[in-house]
């Protein structure tokens, strides 16, 4: 039997073969187009051992669960425990949410989410906004009673609950209020405060930006300290790259912004005397997974490698659990098109595959109709089926980090790492992420990248099927009308809020409010503790946000063009 020839770089035969290929390639394709990925890295037609070779294995890759973490943060990765399929749920009033939640639990889900209504995001109770706008995009939750109804006949100690709960974290306070009411120890409450990264809200997704930048800085650290002491199985922080990338940042920029933000939060905690070996264990991340397949995989692999280095070298953490770059991924909504919307199912499949190959811990796949409206139930079901098909039919989760060792993927991972580190250095040079967003630098970069991408689309350099190429003359619209709660349902919710306010003890309310105000005015006190006690004492979500805004300032994003 003939033995396979071992290619050696010093082998002149191999070099001759490469020269010959190059010659042939240039002859056949004299006017090759320049291709770059979204982060601006030039993409070659062929990658070889000149771009990456296995001598770097120990330094650059290693084994899953080991430094430098490139291949994944756990020894078993998806082979041991599949990623969590955490779909977003939230609609209507608490009883609607409860009905949907129990269906999901009966179907075997244990990782659940709670998406509140946009009025909640903006810090309002239902009686403070135009009724037309409430209950469509998420569930209305304003009081401990509402939260209790959301989780009626559900054992909150048995769930991992991810809540979209921006600062000052009123939903977690309400959940802890329910736990207290039911006699459940807060040690048993587990989950994540999603949308806790106020910097990403300041620069990109303003919907969640409630408090002034300085006020936010204090509240976040108080929240992390409180959870560490009182709700130790709760992840108080999810640092978000998804918002900046959805707003237009390139994948490399989004990763750099996220890591720089995490450093800022970690240093803010350390400056309060907290121990990185403890608080870093609970840092989690959230990324956008676009359709730029190889780039997204390289982005996440590079991110893991950079984070473990920062945690060990810059933040001084010795606890190996803190070296893990745990992240949730969501397939990118910006890539989806209104034109020929069923094509979005293909797009989401490719994005999901990129997410899985990137080694994520939890995945949300978008419904194909997200670009038309709030997703229908059928579209949401297809989004989940997409994950199951990729995992169980196609066998894409059988091997850990399956693209490792590819000349292209490894070379791209290295180049993305360089690009990310370069941007992080620029942020360091202006004094860190807080300063960089205060001055508007990050917002300008995002705006420029968004415009660059849009111009590429309009010049036809970036194809979007059905939008700038392969368009149809006649579009079939599949848009379903928006599902909205009826007026009587909204009315019943407003009545229950009015009853809650009428029936609460005025003495307890007054004492809760004055404690909250005094905690806000005294930086030595933990304001989050006062918020939790506040909702237990009868304050509503809207009242907490209003009083905290009065004390710490309203969050007004900068408008930069």
């Amino acid at each position, binding site marked *: 039997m003939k033995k396979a020839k071992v290619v050696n770089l010093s082998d002149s035969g191999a070099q001759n073969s490469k020269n010959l290929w190059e010659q042939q390639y240039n002859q056949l394709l004299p006017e090759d187009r320049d291709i770059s990925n979204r982060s601006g890295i030039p993409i070659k037609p062929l990658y070889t051992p000149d771009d990456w070779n296995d001598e770097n294995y120990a330094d650059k890759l290693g084994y899953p669960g080991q430094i430098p973490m490139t291949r994944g943060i756990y020894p078993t990765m998806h082979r041991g425990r599949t990623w969590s399929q955490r779909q977003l749920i939230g609609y209507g009033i608490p009883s609607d949410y409860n009905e949907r939640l129990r269906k999901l639990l009966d179907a075997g889900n244990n990782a659940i989410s709670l998406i509140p209504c946009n009025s909640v995001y903006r810090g309002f109770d239902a009686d403070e906004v135009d009724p037309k*706008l409430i209950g469509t995009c998420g569930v209305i939750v304003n009081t401990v009673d509402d939260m209790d109804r959301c989780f009626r006949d559900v054992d909150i100690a048995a769930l991992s609950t991810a809540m979209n709960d921006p600062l000052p974290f009123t939903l977690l306070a309400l959940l802890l209020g329910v736990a207290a009411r039911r006699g459940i120890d807060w040690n048993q409450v587990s989950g994540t405060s999603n949308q806790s990264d106020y910097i990403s809200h300041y620069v990109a997704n303003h919907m969640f930006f409630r408090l002034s930048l300085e006020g936010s800085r204090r509240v976040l650290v108080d929240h992390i300290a409180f959870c560490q002491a009182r709700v130790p199985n709760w992840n108080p922080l999810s640092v978000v790259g998804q918002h900046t990338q959805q707003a237009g940042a390139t994948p490399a920029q989004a990763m750099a912004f996220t890591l720089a933000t995490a450093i800022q939060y970690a240093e803010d905690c350390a400056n309060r005397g907290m121990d990185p070996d403890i608080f870093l264990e609970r840092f989690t991340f959230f990324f956008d997974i676009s359709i730029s397949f190889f780039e997204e995989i390289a982005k996440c692999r590079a991110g893991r490698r950079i984070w473990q280095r920062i945690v060990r070298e810059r933040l001084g953490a010795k606890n190996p659990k803190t070296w893990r770059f745990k992240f949730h991924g969501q397939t990118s909504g910006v890539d989806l098109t209104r034109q020929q919307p069923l094509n979005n199912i293909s797009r989401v499949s490719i994005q999901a595959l990129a997410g899985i190959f990137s080694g994520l811990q939890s995945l949300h796949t978008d419904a194909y109709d997200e670009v038309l409206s709030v997703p229908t139930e059928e579209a949401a079901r297809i989004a989940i089926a997409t994950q199951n098909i990729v995992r169980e039919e196609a066998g894409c989760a059988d091997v850990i980090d399956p693209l490792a060792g590819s000349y292209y993927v490894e070379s791209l991972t290295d180049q993305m790492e360089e690009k990310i580190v370069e941007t992080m250095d620029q942020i360091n040079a202006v004094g860190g992420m807080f300063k960089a967003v205060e001055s508007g630098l990050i917002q300008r970069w995002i705006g420029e990248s968004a*415009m660059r991408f849009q111009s590429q689309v309009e010049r036809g350099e970036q194809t979007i099927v059905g939008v700038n190429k392969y368009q149809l003359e006649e579009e079939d619209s599949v848009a379903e009308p928006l599902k909205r709660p009826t007026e009587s349902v909204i009315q019943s919710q407003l009545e229950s809020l009015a009853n809650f306010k009428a029936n609460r003890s005025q003495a307890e309310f007054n004492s809760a409010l004055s404690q909250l105000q005094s905690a806000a005015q005294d930086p030595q006190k933990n304001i989050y503790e006062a918020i939790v006690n506040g909702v237990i004492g009868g304050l509503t979500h809207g009242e907490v946000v209003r009083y905290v805004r009065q004390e710490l300032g309203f969050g007004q994003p900068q408008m930069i*063009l």
Partner: protein
Amino acid sequence: MLLDSYRPKVIVTKIGLDGHDRGSRLVATKLRDSGMEVVYTPPWQSVSAVVRLAAEEDADVIGISSLATDHLLVPDLVSALHDAGLDHIGIIVGGIIPDDDEQTLLEGGVHRVFHPGSSLVEISDFVRDLAIKSRTRSLRKFQVVSNEES
């Protein structure tokens, strides 16, 4: 009327609760770079604040970006502009707008709805034409008033 060299004045804003602004920033930047005067506001404006701003700025066109359900407030804006005597102002809406709602908006006085995937050039050309039409309407209104006065 020689309005070919007229520099349109456009308000780009978001009313209601949502804060996603990639679309509104791109559109505002494009309109500005095409030579229009752009007033770009923070999100979460109230209908009355937009009407006040439109009057103060003497705007030709108002562009509303909506990615959630805030477009449901646009009919209120149209009628508030009408009540304030500003019905010459052109209104466009951009973002995620379900088909049924688009029909309602267009019938209710919105001049055009732009969906994701729209080209910035197309938006900018449309806004320029619309601005010239609104300016013409406004001048006519003004002339009628001055004639009555004289």
